[in-house]
């Protein structure tokens, strides 16, 4: 079992003819993901390696039976690409693109509220069910099959967690990077709900960072809804207020979104807070 993606997932790639699109589509294929179609408007009828390209998502879905999409188009076109995928009835959209204007994402979220499509990202490394399916840009050497669910706002911290888990002998069911933007699709609680419902997932690692209150909400949910052990980490204790720490969503302003508040919320909800990221693997070994 796994969450959101598995060996049967049929992926199409929006922006497959771009440099990034080609590179990561190939990497997903190499990993074993079933990449069944690509979309680049105006290049319908061509192929990227053996993958047929279509002008629209609608057309691609009809021809290939794709049920998931990975978006690797430049920021000015990304909101449009997400909405096109949702309009075509794609069930899962993973948007890797970084730098989408907030106002665009606001319109996208309001549009998605009228659809059944699940969006992961944007500004994220994607999602991986080790050994089965990768939709995203994680290195193929990452992760191994197992029983820990990982959810994180940060890309490289997802890698760090997967690496340390693997080092201490824990494989993963599914690892999800939900992205570092202020407005994103799937949030912590969506992932936690899915991990809770998945019998194969026995434990959870949750990695947050400063900004917003998604971590606090997630902790409330954990307290009320799951008995699975959760190890949590929050990045940004030393971040100065008022500065965006790389991610558009990672900012402490007006005293809100501080690492301290999030850590406090973790401690109050029974989450095992990891103080030293370098020792996350050891802590998981102790807790799980």
């Amino acid at each position, binding site marked *: 079992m796994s969450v959101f993606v598995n060996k049967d997932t049929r992926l199409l790639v929006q922006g497959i003819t771009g440099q990034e699109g080609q590179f990561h589509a190939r990497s997903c294929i190499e990993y074993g993901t079933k990449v069944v179609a690509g979309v680049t408007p105006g290049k319908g009828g061509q192929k990227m390696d053996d993958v047929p390209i279509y002008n629209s998502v609608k057309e691609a879905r009809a021809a290939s039976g794709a049920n998931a999409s990975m978006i690797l188009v430049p920021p000015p076109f990304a909101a449009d690409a997400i909405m096109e995928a949702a309009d075509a009835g794609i069930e899962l959209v993973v948007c890797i693109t970084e730098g989408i204007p907030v106002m665009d994402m606001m319109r996208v979220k309001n549009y998605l509220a009228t659809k059944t499509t699940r969006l992961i990202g944007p500004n994220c490394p994607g999602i991986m069910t080790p050994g089965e399916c990768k939709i995203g840009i994680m290195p193929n050497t990452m992760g191994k099959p197992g029983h820990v669910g990982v959810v994180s706002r940060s890309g490289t911290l997802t890698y760090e967690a997967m690496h340390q888990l693997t080092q201490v002998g824990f494989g993963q069911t599914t690892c999800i990077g939900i992205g570092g933007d202020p407005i994103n699709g799937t949030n912590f609680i969506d992932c936690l709900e899915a991990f809770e419902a998945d019998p194969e997932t026995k434990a959870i690692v949750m990695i947050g960072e400063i900004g917003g209150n998604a971590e606090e909400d997630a902790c409330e949910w954990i307290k009320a809804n799951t008995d699975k052990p959760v190890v949590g980490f929050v990045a940004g204790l030393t971040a100065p207020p008022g500065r965006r720490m790389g991610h558009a969503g990672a900012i402490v302003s007006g005293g809100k979104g501080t690492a301290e508040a999030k850590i406090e919320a973790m401690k109050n909800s029974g989450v095992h807070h990891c103080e030293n990221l*370098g020792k996350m693997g050891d802590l998981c070994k102790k807790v799980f």
Partner: protein
Amino acid sequence: MKIHEYQAKELFRKYNVPTPNGKVAYKIEEVEKIADEFGLPVVVKAQVHAGGRGKGGGVKLAKTKEEVTQFADDIIGMTLVTKQTGAEGKKVNMVLVEQGVSIKKELYLSVIPDRETCSVAIVCSQDGGMDIEEVAAKTPERIITVHVSPTTGVQPFHMRQVCFGLELPKELMKPMSAIVKNLYNLFVDYDCSMLEINPLIITGEDNIIALDAKIDVDGNALYRHADVKDMHDADEEDPIELEASTFGLNYINLEGNVGNIVNGAGLAMATMDIVKQAGASPANFLDVGGGANAEAIENGFRLIMSDPSVKGILINVFGGILRCDVLAQGVVQAATKLKLSVPVVVRMEGTNVVEGRKILADSGLDLVNAVDLADAAEKVAALVA
């Protein structure tokens, strides 16, 4: 991207949001000339990207000719220290000179994107002119928040919620509604990430005027706002941060003694945290990004070395798209060119890590290798202690 008050007011005027008459001046004589033109009193306002200017002495009301000259002299060229500038303050290069207006009542109004509800929030209060965070903490009932969905845009009922919420007299509801509508449109059209007026005043003549104006535009949307891009003031930026951005590096200057080179924003923050836990303090946040090449790494190195308080450097890279061999080449390239004067601890993991480690080992450079993140932090902290 923040813009100056006078620039924000230019946008206000474009959207028919009333502002006082005002002009920008760089010299004392210019201030005097503008004051002659407007007539007394005038307000002289320092133009820097920081709040709390009034308390710091950067905003003064001149009632006489002598005061005009005096205040212009005081403010132009001063180093303004407010709670937002930090102790080092900001140098004032220009002022906005505005015609004085009579104030009957001070209101507060801001527009911000609300990440939880995915809507545009219009926040207002009758308690303008004060620190709004204090109002929110002490008397939250005096803050009115109206959420506007971007799919409908601002509707008359939103405007009524603002007007009734502010307990405005009937005759001011029409002009206030127009202001709310126009500000919402400005906010959306220009991809603002913050728009704030404190105070928005009711004058003695019962006009509503934006006495102050703050606008922050979403940096990711600047590609579609060439006019705002032109408003960028390089003097407001940290020179190292500005230079870093030209190389595609995300750099934030801090006060500590350990320079950090990291890929990924989350890992960069976590690296700063772990350096602190190990007993040292981070000198910077530096995310070289996923697609960094050897040149970018070299430039990152150079920028960190230009900070005299740096006593040691920690390189922490989890190779994904950024391959460890590319990183190692950048490190060797930089270290050879720049002649390292401080110890460098390297921790890398991920894509092509074996090749990367070999490049570093073969380089003959005096680098300290770390086996994992915890080890790296302890080693660099010991070296700078």
